[in-house]
């Protein structure tokens, strides 16, 4: 791996390595070449963002998958690109020493550090189901995230409760944003979260001081703006109607679509199908033959049974495609104006006519009309 970096001599081998690292990191998370230069400048100024990583009700799967990235490798990340000041799994320190490190990092970078939350926060019985150093998770997250520059919830547990919140949710587990009301919490759901979605967000904040565009559930659009189904490597089989019916059957062995086995890809927003895990091609659930369980979706994961098929709004590709530049698809102001005038005139005339019928009472009665009550006699 990399030698310690010195920026005194731009021509040095280590600087070249570092430039390569920055370029790799920027490319991997889709930030472009400008970002690589900014990483470099930031690192040269010694202005690496401080990151404080909190762990509550979780399995450490998100950390484990982050440890297995190589572009950039996590050691490069935590040593060169960011300054990871508190992380219980990666810490050499323990006990009071660790607590002291947390306090010091918070004090030194107050208002600027990135608070990463991994794991759900239990709320029942005042949160006694998760306590670290004598404090409940609720107290810790309020304290640490309250002074942070940005808060990122990594994994489904921190995003909306995840596994700990599955029915009957014995500890009242919730996501970070439900504790930190009024604060922007970037959710990077996934079980585990794809590390690149996390890296992209952290590096963008570190480099530009901004957060990526978020969807309605505060997930970065660059990663969660499309469904797994849209770019699934098995999509051609879906469109052609070739499905695995049982694990290990002919279709399953031939790599057919897993929809009938309960794949939630069509309703799951995530980048798994284009950004596989740990840079191993095909290393993602559908790639290894298991249906997507919808781990990034609060309404699906750990709620909809694994082998229940989801409803697909548009199961078939369209049979008609518009021209490259459809000439007909513009709506002219004249057309809308005419339509509006016609509808308005009809509505107005109808309303006025019915008002007059009610008020003027000038109807001529049928001579043979029956009961007096039913008559509308001219006054």
């Amino acid at each position, binding site marked *: 791996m990399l030698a310690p970096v010195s920026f005194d001599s731009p021509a040095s081998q280590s600087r070249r390595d570092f430039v390569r690292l920055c370029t790799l990191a920027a490319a991997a998370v889709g930030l472009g070449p400008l970002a690589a230069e900014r990483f470099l400048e930031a690192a040269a100024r010694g202005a690496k963002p401080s990151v404080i990583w909190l762990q509550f009700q979780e399995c450490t799967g998100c950390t484990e998958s982050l440890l297995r990235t190589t572009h950039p490798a996590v050691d490069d990340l935590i040593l060169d690109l960011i300054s990871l000041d508190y992380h219980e799994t990666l810490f050499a320190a323990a006990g009071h020493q660790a607590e002291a490190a947390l306090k010091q990092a918070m004090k030194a970078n107050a208002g600027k550090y990135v608070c990463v939350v991994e794991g759900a926060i239990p709320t029942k019985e005042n949160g006694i189901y998760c306590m670290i150093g004598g404090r409940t998770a609720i107290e810790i997250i309020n304290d640490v995230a309250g002074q942070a520059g940005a808060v990122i919830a990594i994994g489904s547990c921190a995003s909306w409760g995840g596994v700990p919140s599955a029915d009957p949710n014995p500890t009242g587990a919730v996501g970070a944003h439900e504790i930190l009301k009024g604060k922007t919490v970037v959710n990077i759901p996934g079980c585990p979260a794809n590390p690149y979605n996390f890296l992209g967000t952290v590096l963008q904040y570190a480099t530009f001081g901004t957060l990526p565009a978020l969807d309605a559930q505060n997930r970065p659009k660059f990663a969660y703006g499309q469904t797994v189904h849209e770019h699934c490597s098995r999509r051609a089989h879906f469109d052609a109607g070739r499905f695995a019916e049982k694990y290990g059957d002919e279709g399953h062995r031939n790599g057919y679509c897993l929809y009938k086995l309960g794949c939630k890809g069509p309703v799951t927003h995530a980048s798994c199908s284009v950004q596989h895990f740990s840079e191993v091609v095909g290393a993602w659930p559908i790639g290894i033959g298991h249906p997507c369980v919808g781990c990034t979706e609060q309404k699906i994961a750990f709620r909809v049974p694994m082998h229940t098929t989801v409803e697909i*709004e*548009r*199961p*078939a590709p*369209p049979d*008609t*495609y*518009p*021209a490259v530049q*459809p000439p*007909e*698809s513009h*709506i*002219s102001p*004249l*057309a*809308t*104006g*005419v*339509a509006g005038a*016609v509808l308005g005139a009809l509505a107005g005339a*109808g*309303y006025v*006519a*019915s*008002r*007059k*019928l*009610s*008020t*003027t009472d*000038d*109807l*001529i*009665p*049928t*001579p043979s*009309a*029956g*009961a007096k*009550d*039913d*008559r*509308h006699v*001219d006054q």
Partner: protein
Amino acid sequence: MRAAELNGDARPVGGPIFTAGFNALLAIVGACGLVIVWRLFRGLGAVSAMNDGYPWGIWIAYDVVSGTALACGGYAVALLCYVLNKGQYHSLVRPAVLTSALGYSLAGFAVLLDLGRYWNIWKAPFLLNWNRNSILLEVALCISAYTVVLWIEISPAFIERWRDSTSPLLRGIAERLTPFLNRTLLWFMALGILLPTMHHSSLGALMLIGVSKLHQLWFTPLLPLMFVVSCIAMGYAVVVFEATVSARLFKRPHEHKMLTSLSGVMVGVLTTLVGMRLVDLISRQRIGLAFTPDRYALFFWLEMAAFITPAILLAPKDWRRDPGIQFLSALMMMVAGTLYRFDVFLVGFNPGPQFSYFPSAFETLVTLGLIAVEVAAYLAIVKRFPILSGAPVAAGPPGLVSGLRAAS
């Protein structure tokens, strides 16, 4: 049943045909005619906003699908009169059948305009050319057959007039047709109930193959039934609308008692319709889509409001008697049924990404022109032929009527 008995006390309204209002209608028809000529020579693309994704527009959604439903007055009143044997509605039959006959004829004409290669239409009557798997074929056959049946049903009105004609030709036709009609009219009336039931359910069935293209708020196996029930609601609404307007326009007696009880029928039909719609959505677990904030939900609620409001307005007996409320409710039901058809055929229909459709000004003009033809033809026919019953009342009170009368 004898033809002459169909509506014994109907008589022509009389008066000049070419009034200011009539001429204004003719002006719209003229403009529409120019667009039609342009369309016939330069093709659909020259005048319409239709495209490969939306191969039909308002000429189908309004002129044909909604137009035939709005022309269901004859069907709805015939159901009431002949099937449920409520003879007291007889005087509403002739005007209702006339509006139906006009509406269906124009719907047929509108289909012709919508045909890309209309010059091939001569092949249609030949059995060998039929696609016997097509629902559209059933629609086409029923609409054309029903149009003929409607004109036969209304023909006693023409015959009564022609019997006294000075022209020997017309007198001859009238004399020859009378015994035929006396013998067969009953069967035509039966057909007049069967055919619209068939083709309105087929209009709904047309969209059953839309499965994934039609939004789930509208796509249901019940589409055919929904179309039939909603066209009956629209039919009654048109009868109320038409009877109210004619009464004012031509100083005829207002069939108030009859329209009031007809409005009671509408409450039942509307409640059935809304109930079916909701039960269907809930049982198919699609009701959540109605609460998703998008344009589909917006149109769904507009449509539901237009169906529910008249049911609420007409439910209390006191309100039901108010002619203004009757009229407003009838209008809303016509809007509701039309909106439902627009939703199924255009709003809820999504052929794929990047396609969009909004009727061009020319398409709107043609639709307006066809409505104008219908109104003008109705005005002319009731003035010359015995359609409306009761004698005109001499002294009309002032109000809205005077304005309308001056225009007519």
